[in-house]
């Protein structure tokens, strides 16, 4: 029998593949930015599921918070570049 968390992780990876398609093909830059933000969220969910698979979710929640902050910084940098063409 397949583990429940493993099944959920595989379904989320499949959803992430669809979002990656939109990030690659996406006609406008906002499609890509939204896809990257969405993929960051998916990454955090996969990380938490892996944490539950290893039976120590408390450690993985800390790492997940770090990932959310880093992804937020990257998306802010993308948005600022698109808005003004420079970062400083």
């Amino acid at each position: 029998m397949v583990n429940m968390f493993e099944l959920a992780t595989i379904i989320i990876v499949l959803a992430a593949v669809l979002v990656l398609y939109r990030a690659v093909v996406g006609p406008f830059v906002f499609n890509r930015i939204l896809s990257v933000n969405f993929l960051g969220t998916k990454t955090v969910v996969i990380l938490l599921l892996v944490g539950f698979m290893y039976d120590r979710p408390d450690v993985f929640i800390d790492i997940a918070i770090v990932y959310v902050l880093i992804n937020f910084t990257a998306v802010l940098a993308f948005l600022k570049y698109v808005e003004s063409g420079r970062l400083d």
Partner: protein
Amino acid sequence: MIDIAIPLFLVVCGIAVLFVRGLFSSIMIFSVYSLVMAIEWVRLNAVDVAITEAAVGAGISTVLFIIILSRTKYVDEGKHMNIPALLVSVSVAAVLLYGTLDLPNLRDPNIAPNTHVTPYYLEHSYEETGQLNVVAAILASYRGYDTLGETTVVATAGFCLILLLRGSNRRQGTKDSQKRTGSRT
């Protein structure tokens, strides 16, 4: 299943970085690649490497790439195959893959890394260095000189980067400093 799915997603991300249109889109997909790579490090139980990969790969290098993109000009020449470069890349990848065949099985308790120095560190590191974390003890105490050289190299690279970014800023500043001060006051 996950051990197949996540590396496959990683490979798809890497190919997408090459074939997507425009450098800005490549940077965005590369940041996704770094995050998924960090998940793979967590899967391999290397949590500290995962945090470093996420902070450096997805955070700092993405921002640095965007700064470089905003400071330079590039021309999109369209897609064309560079056959010699492709041959060199494929042959280097083949040599590296051939080299991995000689790696020992890491789960085998009788290989040299598991019998030679690791048990010594695990037994004596607390008495000799007083560090609770064995990885920190090896990095900071046993490899002190090694880490010192590494830190010097990284600090030099950081200084060079600061000088490069500040230099271009000053050149632009002299050109339109009148306009900026006029708009501020």
